[in-house]
C-alpha cells in the first residue's frame, strides 16, 4: 500500500514538472488569444460584445442548430451547428449557464460552416449560435429542456 502511494506520488510530481515546463514554453500569444473577458461575462450580450466586438445580431434562417429538445443529462448535450454562409467563426452560448459562452470556433478559409461538439447545461435554457460572416453577426436560437443539470456535484 505504502509502495503504491509512493509510486503515485512520484508519477504525479513528474507530471507536474512536465506541465510546468510546458507552461513556461507556451508562448504568451496563445494565452492572450483565449478571450478571457468573453468567457467571464455573465450574460450573452457582454459575452458576444467581448468576443466579437458587437452585439448587433440579426436572426438568420440559414443557421441550423441540431440539439435535443429534451436533454436527459445536462452534462452531455450533443449539439451541431451548421450554416450555408461563408462563416469566419461560430460561437455557442447558453443563456442560463453561469458564464454563457460555451465555445467559439474560428474557421479557416476552406472550412465548412459546420461544427459538432458536446456541452454542459446547468438548466433548461436557450442555446444561441452566433455566426460571423462577412464582418456581420447572425444568430439562431433553440430551447433545450434539461432534466438533470450538468454543473452540480
Amino acid at each position, binding site marked *: 500500500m505504502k509502495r503504491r502511494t509512493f509510486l503515485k506520488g512520484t*508519477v*504525479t510530481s513528474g*507530471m507536474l514538472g512536465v*506541465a*510546468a515546463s*510546458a*507552461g513556461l514554453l*507556451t508562448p504568451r500569444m*496563445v494565452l492572450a*488569444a*483565449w*478571450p478571457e473577458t468573453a*468567457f467571464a461575462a455573465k450574460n450573452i450580450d457582454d459575452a458576444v460584445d467581448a468576443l466579437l466586438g458587437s452585439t448587433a445580431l440579426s436572426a438568420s434562417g440559414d443557421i441550423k442548430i441540431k440539439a435535443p429538445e429534451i436533454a436527459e443529462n445536462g*452534462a*452531455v*448535450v*450533443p449539439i*451541431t451547428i451548421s450554416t450555408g454562409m461563408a462563416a469566419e467563426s461560430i460561437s455557442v452560448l*447558453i443563456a442560463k*449557464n*453561469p*458564464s454563457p*459562452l*460555451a*465555445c*467559439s*470556433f*474560428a*474557421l*479557416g478559409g*476552406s*472550412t*465548412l460552416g*459546420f*461544427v*459538432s*461538439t*458536446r*456541452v*454542459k*447545461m446547468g438548466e433548461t435554457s436557450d442555446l444561441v449560435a452566433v455566426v460571423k460572416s462577412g464582418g456581420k453577426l447572425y444568430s439562431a436560437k433553440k430551447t433545450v429542456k434539461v432534466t438533470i443539470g*450538468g*454543473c*452540480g*456535484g
Partner: protein
Amino acid sequence: MAKKKIRIRAKMKGDIAEIKTLMSHPMETGFRKNKKTGKKIPPHFIKEVICEHKGNKVLVASWGVAVSKNPYLSFKFKGAAKGDTITISWNDNKGESATADAKIS
C-alpha cells in the same frame, strides 16, 4: 491522472474531409465540490484546440468550462486529399498540452 489522449478519425467524403475527434480530459468547471471534503474542485479545462492541415489552421476552438468532459469535436473542410495528415493539439488552463496526428482516409 488521466492519460492524455486524442483520438482522431479523418475521412474523405467526396471533396470534403470530415474530421471527428475525441480528447480525454476531465473538463472540471470549478463549480463542483468534492463530496468527501466539501472543498471546491479547482477548474481544469481545455482552453484552445488547434486543428492543422498542411500548416494551415483549419479550425481554432476556444473553449470554456461548459464543454463536456472528454470533449468530442467534429468539423469539415475542403482542399484535403487522401493520405494528408491532420494535426490536432490542445492546451488547458494548467498549461498542459497534447498533440496527435492522423492520416485522412
